[in-house]
């Protein structure tokens, strides 16, 4: 059974929001830190237009490669 939660200690540092059905904007390192934040646009494959950035899994694979 799900329960309501106390949000007092919650400190997110990565945010992602879709822009329509074709892309997602993500901010990494958004919390209080000496460096960052860094923003990325990832693309969602769709029949109407070219993706404006790599699909999201490619961002994670790129991180693995780095």
């Amino acid at each position, binding site marked *: 059974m799900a329960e309501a*939660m106390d949000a007092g200690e*919650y400190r997110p*540092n990565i*945010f992602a929001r879709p822009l329509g059905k074709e892309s997602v904007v993500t901010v990494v390192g958004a919390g209080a830190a000496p460096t960052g934040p*860094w923003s990325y646009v990832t693309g*969602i494959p769709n029949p109407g*237009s070219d993706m404006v950035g790599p699909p999201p899994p490619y961002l994670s694979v790129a*991180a693995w490669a780095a």
Partner: protein
Amino acid sequence: MGVAYRGNIALDDIKVDFEVKPIGPPNAIGFGVKETVTLIGKISEQERVRLERASNYCPVGQALTKGSMQVEDQVLWASGELLTASPTPEGLKALEGNLPAIPPGTVHAQYLLDTKELDESGGMVHEGEAKVTVRCDNLTRSSGWIVLGGHSTPGWVPGPFPLAHGGWAASTAATLSQLLPQTGDDLKVELAIARTSGGPAESQSNAAAGVVAHRQVSRRITVPGTPQDIPLDMVQAALLRDPMSITYQHGGILLEHNVVVG
């Protein structure tokens, strides 16, 4: 590179190549990768094996192949209700609906040698950064993008671990935007990642020793409306379709792994 340095392995350079392949139903993770690591330097077979293990047990590799992340999900509705979404109810079926296939492509990382930082006594301060070239099929052409990641004092680029989480957050947002009804631009995914006490040195030590280090992360998904509009189990069922969430929970995207001395 950090593991090689701390292990006194004469690694001059390193290149990493991934081939990304779409994987559809019935093994519907969404994608798989073949990895080739090319080590450049005078490296013995024993050292090659050690670096091969390190590449498998780096923090990102652990998250993507060994299910090392312990994820606690929450769903927040625009109406103000906040509920835990972990664990997923046993027997819950994945939400139906069309998700676009992940296109095939490649990922190539080139280590930027001159970004390595040493202190006055020659000790490694930061292992440096890498330039990653991503290429994949697009609607009308093959497209390419550059991503930078690594560790350096100026901090121009993110560390690989938070960057990987960025891909996971983006994947979650993309999947939910396709499957949930009428989310529009009101959908948001947030990750709260606890810092580890040991930092990169501890991560490299774990990688060298082949130790899986479990890490906590909280994921909060904000959806429009009320729990009556978008029920909790609908969100949970949609997450069962997300390629990166499946990968983070269960690992399994590594189809093939080769470490060669070039």
